[in-house]
């Protein structure tokens, strides 16, 4: 018999092979190999039946099929853009997918080079000279930036200033990560969806070690005061951390040009489909913080034949060497998602990326104008330029409008009693006419 019909389908042993191997080991049964005292042995059952592949695929398709088929006009930090087939195809090559961290660089040059290229493209986009090869997501990236701000020589304070209007997931993660370091998170207000520079200036003092701002903001407004924020942070010896994403960076001002010291954000707006919040955290910073950077870094070197080669480097920052004095506890990261981002960026090229970004501005503008034409609706609520998304004010209670829209096949964000948020990308841009009609009916 070459295949067993019980046990794990992914363990190749026939009964005869198992018997022969037990013989070599000198054990009678597999159970004899376990040195588990009786008092803690488990002899119960989980009650999970073993299923064949077809049944599992069908079962899970049924389960996932219970998700309603709605057209999403959703964003607020998680964005779907069209991912070209070639990205799916190439990234799914199992040489990439089923490998791990490049502890043996000689035999994993392919992935190392791909990550080096990812880092390099982030340098292109941010203008900052150092980018790591991924954080888990935007929220943990921001939290790591805060811890970096605490460690670097350039700062002395222990307060972090973040916008009042920050996504709960980011704020909550930040609060947890900085608690152990004894840092305090405080907020500054927005004025018409942009940084209230005067208020920020009032809150800044010598105890602030990091000022965080976003471009675009969580409601999609393009930030117009970045230079002022950068200057204020620099005047107070605080780091300026900018949150953004690679699509926005295709058009909006280069972070280095506005004085950003660290750039974080959700890079999974490229390369990944909408994934229930899964993404990849981008992280770039100034050269002077190099030895304080969290996460993995790929560098160029040479091999014994003098040929260029890539390797993980500056590993003495990392937990497997530095233990409790490491710059972060991160080990497994989001490398494969970073690979997909790099593929998507290269596929777009600078023209494609800039055009995609320009569409994010124009589509949002057009959609807002169409919605604004509806009686009892104001869009965009802020008198700003917008990127992908914007806030809509409705005279009718917003939750009722959202419910009604849902009945018509569309999902939007409900912010409060009279405010909704709407996001348009290349994925749903073809359905804005239907959406506006539905909105007219719902508002």
């Amino acid at each position, binding site marked *: 018999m070459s295949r067993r019909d019980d046990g794990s389908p992914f363990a190749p042993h026939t009964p005869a092979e198992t018997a022969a191997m*037990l013989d070599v080991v000198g054990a009678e049964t597999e159970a004899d190999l376990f040195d588990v005292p009786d008092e803690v042995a488990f002899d119960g059952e*989980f009650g999970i039946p073993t299923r064949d592949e077809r049944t599992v695929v069908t079962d899970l398709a049924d389960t996932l099929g219970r998700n309603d088929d709605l057209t999403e006009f959703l964003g607020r930090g998680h964005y779907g853009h069209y991912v070209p087939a070639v990205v799916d195809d*190439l990234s799914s090559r199992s040489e990439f997918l089923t490998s791990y961290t490049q502890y043996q*660089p000689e035999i994993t040059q392919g992935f190392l080079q791909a990550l080096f290229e990812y880092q390099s493209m982030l340098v292109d986009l941010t203008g900052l*000279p150092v980018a790591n090869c991924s954080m888990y997501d935007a929220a*943990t990236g921001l939290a790591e930036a805060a811890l970096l701000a605490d460690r670097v020589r350039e700062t002395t304070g222990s307060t972090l200033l973040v916008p009042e209007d920050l996504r709960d997931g980011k704020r909550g993660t930040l609060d947890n990560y900085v608690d152990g370091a004894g840092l305090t998170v405080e907020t500054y207000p927005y004025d018409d969806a942009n940084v209230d520079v005067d208020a920020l200036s009032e809150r800044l003092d010598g105890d602030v070690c990091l000022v965080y701002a976003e471009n675009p903001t969580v409601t999609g407004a393009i930030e117009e005061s970045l230079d002022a924020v950068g200057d204020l942070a620099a005047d107070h010896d605080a780091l300026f951390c900018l949150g953004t994403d690679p699509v926005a960076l295709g058009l909006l001002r280069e972070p280095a040009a506005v004085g950003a010291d660290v750039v974080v954000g959700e890079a999974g707006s490229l390369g990944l489909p909408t*994934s229930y919040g899964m993404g990849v955290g981008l992280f770039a910073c100034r050269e002077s913080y190099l030895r304080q950077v969290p996460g993995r870094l790929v560098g160029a070197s040479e091999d014994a034949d003098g040929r260029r080669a890539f390797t993980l480097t500056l590993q003495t920052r990392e937990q497997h060497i530095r233990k409790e004095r490491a710059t972060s506890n991160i080990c497994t990261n989001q490398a494969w998602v970073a690979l997909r981002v790099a593929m998507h960026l*290269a596929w777009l090229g*600078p023209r494609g990326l800039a055009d995609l970004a320009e569409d994010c501005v124009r589509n949002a503008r057009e959609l807002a104008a169409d919605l604004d034409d509806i009686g009892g609706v104001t869009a965009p609520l802020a008198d700003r330029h917008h990127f992908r998304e914007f806030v809509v004010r409705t005279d009718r209670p917003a939750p009722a409008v959202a419910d009604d829209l849902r009945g018509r096949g569309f999902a939007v964000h409900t912010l409060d009693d009279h405010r909704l948020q709407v996001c348009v990308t290349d994925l749903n841009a073809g359905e804005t006419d239907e959406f506006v009609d539905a909105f007219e009916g719902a508002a």
Partner: protein
Amino acid sequence: MNYDQARYGDDERNEPLLSEKRAAEVDPGEGSALPDELTRDSLELPAPSEPELARHYTRLSQMNWSVDSGPYPLGSCTMKYNPTFTETVAADPNAAVHPDRDPETVQGTLELLYGLQEYLADIGGMDAVTLQPPAGAAGEFTGITVAKAYHERNGNDRSEVIVPASAHGTNFATAAMAGYDVVELPSGEDGRVDVEALEAAVSDDTAALMLTNPNTVGLFERDIVEIADIVHRAGGLLYYDGANLNALLGRARPGDMGFDIMHYNVHKTFATPHGGGGPGAGPVGVVSELAEFLPRPRVREADDGDYELFDPARSIGKVHGFAGNWLVLVKAYAYIHRLGDEGLLDASAKAVLNANYLAERVAFDVPYGPFHHEFAATAGDRDAADVAKAMLDYGVHPPTTKWPEMVPEAMLTEPTEAESRASLDDLAAAFNAAAADSEGALADAPRKTAARRIDQTSAARDPRLSWHALADAGSTADE
């Protein structure tokens, strides 16, 4: 085994960088609907055509070792086969939903997450599970933050976390990140926790002990009940690092051993692909007393059979911007659903059998035992890193080297259940060929990989972290 890895390029380098192939520069602000002061003036990026892109990444993939290429016995990492049907499941368009969808409209997603919470709780013997942590280390941070919240709630500020010397680096780093002093516990003579040393280490300041079981050289902590007692008597909590759960599926559960908190390493135990470094997922399970501290939101089944989100009463808050690594969780669910009780039990049995069989076949000493799914051989008077480089030429990936430190020149080897007897024999042959190689041959290895021995020192001394830092990789932008 005869092996030569693909190489491309010339005497100077392998496959050129994307920037060396074709790049372009544009002015995104030109013709933009935005005012000039809000846009950048220049954007330079690679601009390969799609055929060039396809060839580039195909070549890179050919210069990359993977589980599908051959044995990958990287100890502690559980590089088992990643069944491809889980990719099919995760690619379902119905899985591509936004995290801000109204829960009523994503019942399928919530049902799957709920089902996974339940599976994991059963498998670990835990009462409540969060799926939010995006990797094992993030799970550790979540778990230790839960422990901290629990102690604070009891008006009980504790300042120390105890970590065995043999623990993974993330345990130390996590405890420090959470603001604790790390107390390192030396290993006992037999490679396990020294119970007396633990007695001496615990105190009113002990917040938790972090433990892997079987430990990082594959040994079961036979005194686990006593260990749990000691920690609990001191008022501390017992944390289980789930990296080695692949040894115990269906045979022993952390909850039954007295652990209060654990993380599951689904990219190890539940076969989701490691993706060249990630993504993984690190769900955390806790006993009922700690459930109220878990991150928000969690999923539960309502009375009407619908699934809903809820915030635990004293939640520590968030550890990820959204719900963690959803696509990884889908794959893990699919794997457990496919294997069922019998498959899980067998996966561990074969993982342990394989490690024991391989250890018999290799010509290096294995100082501690009995081990389970992995063993730490010692390279003796040779440098384990050199032995590893030599193994690369024999068509296998080497083990984890020089860790844990309690085994000198350690080669931590975890073959997993996925290797057949024949491939274990190949693996043993690679170990033994490297063992027989002369010092000179070792120092000269590898010769058959896409790159030969890489100079780590100069990479770190003169960091060049992007193509901008390479003199010869200058832009080929056609402006």
